């Protein structure tokens, strides 16, 4: 670049490299190479080494798998546990009680709140407020930072009270819980959600409304994928829903994910009806909008979100809608559980171990998560496959970049503005790059 402003001429040359995108989990690089108006390269390089979790759990007992796989991610540890437990229970024919399902949903919602608040305020908001990180905001916007920390702490406290730890909970096992929360715990959570989280979420909405104009007005038509369940906005269960093709049973997930490898990334990529698809808050919102709770629907309306939302930057806004939705959903479950009291249930154990396979999915904050296990008749894993959301989003990020670069040139952005906008794009997906690197055998053809 000879100057800082890029004009929209057809013969433009442009080179942008962002090594180690900040405010995302893991290491990824942005590479843009345009020569004389032709876009040669536009992608996110994932440079993390493979982690071999699927190989690691071979031979382990069904009782250990959820605890091990929860270590795939420190942010989505609850989601990995839930998905793992469901897959194991399906494989071994274990049916859990309604109370177990309700408590698992509560934990899932707490983990969703925690992750969404972290992303909205600590990872994405600095871009919207024009600062490099949340630290400068402590001086300029102390009340906002304190509110965000308060919301995060409460979300972590919910996981602690229900799961025994703020992250990597240790009370969840196949068939149920080793220790149940008390009714007093549930009343405490209910009180805090109603009297602290709801007002804070409303204040967050007012803040985000003032910043809404800072989201780039970029749109790309693509396929959105997320779970969809009968009667409720899906997080814990459901079928795979696509805005292009409708519903697919979770057992057929491989027909949706269609993983493939690319030379520039150690994470696999995915595609379904098009060259890529999008999972995450927008993937869920675009497939479940009619199932939002009333307050969450009001938040969506005030933020101008209506399906199909095609702007990937608005994933952050969709996360606020979902934060409100899961608070409302949690209050409903808490009222139900408090009214009848927590029953002293022991984890369900299988009558007899058997060979079997179970493929299951849940929605974790960054999108749909699949775990698929095959067990032998001793209850030990012989084969495993985990496909996490960021793996499914990497090709979508690349496809966005391919259209975003010409869009930014058309807008006359400077190279610095373009660089920041590309970083914002990657951050909007809220990627867990370390988690996305899961494959076992890859052959690069370069």
């Amino acid at each position: 670049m000879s100057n800082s402003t890029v004009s929209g001429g057809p013969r433009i040359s442009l080179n942008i490299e962002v090594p180690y995108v900040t405010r995302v989990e893991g290491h990824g690089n942005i590479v843009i190479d345009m020569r004389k108006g032709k876009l040669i390269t536009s992608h996110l390089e994932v440079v993390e080494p493979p982690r071999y979790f699927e190989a690691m759990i071979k031979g382990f007992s069904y009782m250990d798998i959820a605890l091990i796989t929860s270590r795939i991610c420190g942010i989505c540890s609850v989601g990995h546990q839930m998905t793992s437990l469901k897959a194991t229970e399906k494989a071994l024919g274990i049916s859990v009680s309604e109370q177990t399902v309700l408590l698992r949903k509560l934990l899932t919602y707490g983990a969703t709140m925690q992750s969404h608040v972290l992303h909205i305020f600590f990872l994405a908001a600095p871009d919207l407020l024009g600062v490099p990180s949340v630290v400068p905001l402590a001086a300029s916007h102390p009340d906002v930072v304190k509110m965000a920390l308060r919301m995060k702490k409460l979300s972590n406290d919910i996981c602690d009270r229900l799961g025994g730890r703020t992250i990597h909970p240790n009370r969840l096992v196949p068939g149920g819980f080793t220790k149940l929360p008390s009714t007093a715990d549930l009343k405490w959570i209910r009180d805090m959600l109603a009297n602290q989280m709801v007002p804070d979420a409303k204040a967050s909405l007012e803040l985000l409304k003032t910043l809404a104009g800072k989201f780039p007005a970029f749109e790309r038509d693509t396929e959105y994928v997320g779970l969809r369940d009968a009667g409720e906005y899906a997080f814990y269960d459901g079928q795979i829903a696509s805005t292009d093709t409708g519903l697919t049973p979770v057992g057929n997930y491989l027909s949706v994910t269609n993983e493939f490898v690319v030379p520039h990334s150690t994470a696999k990529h995915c595609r379904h009806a098009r060259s890529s698809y999008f999972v995450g808050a927008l993937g869920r919102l675009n497939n479940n909008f009619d199932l939002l709770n009333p307050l969450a629907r009001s938040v969506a309306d005030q933020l101008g979100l209506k399906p199909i939302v095609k702007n990937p930057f608005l994933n952050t806004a969709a996360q606020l809608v979902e934060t409100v939705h899961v608070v409302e959903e949690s209050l409903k479950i808490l009222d139900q559980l408090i009214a009848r009291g927590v029953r002293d249930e022991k984890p369900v154990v299988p009558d007899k171990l058997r060979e079997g396979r179970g493929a299951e999915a849940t929605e974790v904050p960054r999108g749909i998560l699949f775990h698929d296990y095959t067990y032998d008749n001793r209850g030990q894993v012989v084969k495993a496959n985990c496909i996490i959301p960021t793996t499914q989003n990497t090709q979508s990020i690349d496809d966005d970049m391919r259209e975003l670069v010409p869009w930014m040139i058309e807008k006359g952005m400077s190279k610095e503005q373009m660089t920041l906008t590309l970083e914002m794009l990657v951050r909007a997906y809220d990627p867990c790059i370390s988690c996305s690197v899961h494959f076992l055998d890859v052959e690069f053809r370069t």
Partner: protein
Amino acid sequence: MNAGTAEPISIIGLGNIEKRDDGVGVRVVEGLREQLDSGEWRPEVGRDLALVAAGADTLLAAAHAADGRWVIMVDAARMGLPAGEFRMFEPGDVELRGRDQGLAPHDSDLAEALRLVNDLGCAERVRIMGIQCQDVGDGCGLSQRLQARLPEMQARIKEEVGLLP
């Protein structure tokens, strides 16, 4: 201390238990939690005491401080001391440096969290117990030296709890 006037305290264990001694903060707090649950440790009546195994979530430690609580952060450290030695200090007593030269194996995050706490005006309510680590390689158990000194570390934290208002 009069019952009911004790101020809330959070004891936050930091570190990665899959990196051996890096997880000593979490191990210290897990042990204290067991002592509390079993009745072996009985803090003064009316004290709101939170024991949190936060892993690498240093922001959660900042959240507890911002919530008006006293916070004791427990973390592995490189302080140039013999393995297993530990020190209790305040944020203003030390300079937290970069990942490869600094006080704790994940101190770049801890440093940012402490800057946040400082800028929010809450640093005076933070104490840090730094524990000199020996082995931060892959693995789940502590080195023998650190394992042997866990009771002393826990006793020092209980002493600090008794000193706080």
